[in-house]
């Protein structure tokens, strides 16, 4: 499996005595967009955060994470970032006291890695060019999300993890953002997309992973999963479907 970019084995996360995630295996290949879906609290964010060894609390994380063949499971978060594993956490947080330009300028690819240029980023998100000199705090939710993704691209990603990029976005924006993500993937960047908006996600992803209470409930190509009743149930409730 030499073409696997990101691979996790036996990834276990526990808060206190509580198991938040127990993931035997997960892999992400070049040019692949994998959607992670599941109810709130199912462990989706825990999963992407654990891949970076990152958390706002103090969980115990164990297991192996390999990026392009290199074991990075013991490295501090910033080292994983420098090696090209990028995460846009939930809510698309940006540095509110820095301007858009500063946010972008501050994101410089580590030595030996090539990040997206500003021009390439503006090509993807033209809106950011218009807001260049606004403070991060003054952006709308959608603009923040774009900026957060743009920041990660500038850092030179080998693999990109997106945690609920559609949160708080108008439906039109959701599809814009997801289509942009698809463009990135088609250009070769593998993306792990955590999404609660399943309808929107299903339109763009290649594979789906369904989480429930920290474990994988189902996994497979989107074509096979699309009509899986468990997917629909987990989200929409049978009454709606």
């Amino acid at each position, binding site marked *: 499996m030499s073409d696997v970019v990101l691979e996790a084995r036996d990834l276990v996360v526990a808060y206190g005595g509580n198991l938040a995630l127990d993931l035997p295996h997960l892999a992400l290949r070049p040019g692949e967009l994998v959607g992670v879906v599941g109810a709130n609290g199912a462990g989706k964010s825990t999963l992407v955060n654990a891949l*970076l060894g*990152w958390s*706002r609390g103090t969980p115990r994380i164990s297991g192996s994470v390999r990026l392009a063949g290199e074991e990075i499971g013991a490295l*501090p*978060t*910033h*080292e994983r*970032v*420098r090696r090209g594993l*990028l*995460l846009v*956490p939930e809510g698309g*947080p940006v*540095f*509110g*006291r*820095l301007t858009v330009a*500063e946010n972008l*300028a*501050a*994101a*410089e690819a*580590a030595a030996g890695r090539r990040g997206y240029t500003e021009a390439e980023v503006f090509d993807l998100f033209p809106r950011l060019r218009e807001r260049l000199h606004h403070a991060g705090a003054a952006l709308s939710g959608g603009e923040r999300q774009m900026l957060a993704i743009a*920041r990660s691209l500038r*850092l030179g990603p080998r693999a990109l993890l997106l945690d609920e990029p559609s949160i708080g976005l108008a439906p039109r924006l959701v599809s814009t953002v997801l289509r942009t993500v698809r463009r990135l993937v088609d250009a070769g960047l593998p993306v792990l997309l955590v999404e609660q908006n399943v309808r929107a996600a299903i339109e763009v992803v290649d594979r789906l992973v369904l989480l429930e209470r920290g474990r994988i409930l189902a996994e497979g190509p989107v074509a096979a999963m699309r009509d899986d009743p468990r997917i629909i149930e987990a989200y929409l409730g049978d009454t709606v479907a």
Partner: protein
Amino acid sequence: MNLVQQLINGLILGHAYALIAIGWTVLLGVARLVNFGHGQMYMIGAFMAWWATAPLGLPYPVAVLVAVAAGALLGLLVQAVMLRLTLEQNLVSIMIVTLGFGHVLRGAASLAFGGTPQVLETPPSLIEFELAGAWITAQDLLIVAAAILVFALLRGVVERGRLGRTARMVAEDPKLAQLAGIDVTRVYLAVFAFEGAAVALAAALVAPRTPILTSIGFEEVIVTFVVVVLGGIGSVAGSYLAGVGLGLFTALFGGFVSPAYTTAASFAVLTAVLVLRPGGLAAGRAVR
């Protein structure tokens, strides 16, 4: 009337105050950290400069560097010891730890440098001249120049430079900064090293104005508090203005009311500001 002379006094004092407070300003504004051992680090800086000039016989500029290096090392040491508290953003413990650190420094300095007062004799403090009726020294001008230079540099670095941007990212959201590939631990160490170096620089420049003892440092702490709070907690330009303002206030209050109660008066100003506009300080966002 001697108003002009007092204004000159105030300007020199004010630049000295601003210089003394700059380490704290960066510490607080950039990393949201505090150091209650600041005054004792000032004292150590002064004694290191004295030690390099008098017993070692090094030229004054080298002595300044020795003091700055010692200050940076001390800063690194403190931060290395309390790194866990810093990463937890446990300000309550950080305050107490730095207070204890100041206490240790004072005891250690008394052991190392003894109880005798010393004078930091520097070449510029021997050059005296008259300015608008006030006699000042080249050392005084050096302080003013250094303060302006340091503030200008800092404003450039913090507001525009890459280094300052990194630090501001850590200050705003250390967790998010990790996701931008920033080694937060190193930034914290660097910021504390800067605080130590900055206060040592201030000491090496300002301390020649008065004799030094290992028990000094308390007045400097209060001055720093007042400057930092009045300046808007962490604002570089604000601290400069607040420092100069406090210097002028000290000179005018001391000159026309009474020098005996200047500390109390500046504290009264501080309290008034805090009570009248507790949220209105530029602090609001940084401190929340």
